[in-house]
């Protein structure tokens, strides 16, 4: 068995690392580095928001990842899956394509870590980002060959990030409701115009008599309030996961 095969087999163990992860068959073809047809692939845990991500990147961490330590692989996937999804969705790709490219990034990261290692382990996050950039670039190139002008490739500035409900869980919905309930009607209308009705930001601001800076501050404050509730949940989960909650 060659090194790449071992890397892929090791990566596939990530699937079983997340106990409740579901599986689906590979649909992407013409990629020799992907697992064979019928192989199983990692699909995010439906409650991926709840994955624990309190750890640091260093040489020992990368070494554990290289060795296929499940207790390192699981938080690795938990930490990066949402970041990769956010990044890929900002390119206005379809949800299916986002998942394909995210999966591809994970596979390549693991393959490189096992084959060549990482030169700057403390900058492991930047390394994952650069692998994702390569994957994106290749996707653009291959799509350009097949489709001269694909809308998905166009850089669309001034478009609010839309994750198609990918990150919504019952818990986060409750936290957002609590955040929205504490807002004046105008602020809720502003967020409705931007996030739901996807109106032009300038025209929504004008309608409600505010400027773009007000919108930014509003979103920033809403995020802070939501984040406080979000982090409280994350810390509770981390304590449960590490057994600290029993102490």
């Amino acid at each position, binding site marked *: 068995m060659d090194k790449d095969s071992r890397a892929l087999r090791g990566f596939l163990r990530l699937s079983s690392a997340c106990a409740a992860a579901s599986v689906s068959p590979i649909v992407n073809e013409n990629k020799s580095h992907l697992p064979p047809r019928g192989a199983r692939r990692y699909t995010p845990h439906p409650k991926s*928001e709840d994955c624990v*991500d309190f750890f*640091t990147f260093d040489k020992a961490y990368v070494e554990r990842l290289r060795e296929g330590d499940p207790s390192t692989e699981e938080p690795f996937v938990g*930490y*990066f899956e*949402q*970041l990769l999804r*956010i*990044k890929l969705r*900002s390119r206005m790709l379809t949800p299916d394509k986002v998942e394909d490219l995210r999966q591809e990034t994970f596979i390549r990261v693991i393959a490189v870590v096992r084959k060549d290692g990482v030169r700057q382990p403390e*900058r*492991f*996050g*930047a390394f*994952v*980002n*650069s692998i994702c*950039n390569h994957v994106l670039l290749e996707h653009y190139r291959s799509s350009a060959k097949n489709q001269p002008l694909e809308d998905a490739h166009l*850089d*669309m*500035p*001034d*478009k*609010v*990030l*839309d*994750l*198609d*409900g*990918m*990150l*919504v*869980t019952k818990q*986060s*919905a409750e*936290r*957002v*409701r609590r*955040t*929205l309930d504490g807002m004046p009607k105008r602020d*809720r209308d502003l*967020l*409705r115009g*931007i*996030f*739901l009705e996807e109106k032009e*930001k300038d025209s929504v601001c004008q309608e409600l008599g505010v400027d773009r800076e007000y*919108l*930014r501050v509003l*979103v*920033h404050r*809403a*995020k802070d309030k*939501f*984040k406080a509730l*979000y*982090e409280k949940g994350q810390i509770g989960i981390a304590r449960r996961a590490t057994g600290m909650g029993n102490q």
Partner: protein
Amino acid sequence: MDHNDAIQLQAAVKYVLGELSQVQRDEYEEHYFDCAECAVDIKALATFADTAREVLRQEKANQLAKEALPARGGWLRIRIP
């Protein structure tokens, strides 16, 4: 882009609102993949934006459903507890 640059630029909010230039976006991505604080920030913001959309959509649907009900005393009232 370092952490102070990201804070001063309000990069997280602008990223989610689609207000960064392509260069700024790429620099910010390189930063938040490497900065635990900004990673939590961008995750919280993206989750908030995504969830707010769903919550507001649900509210609108509930509102429309309410408006679609017949006036009090209509024949459908018999069927609705």
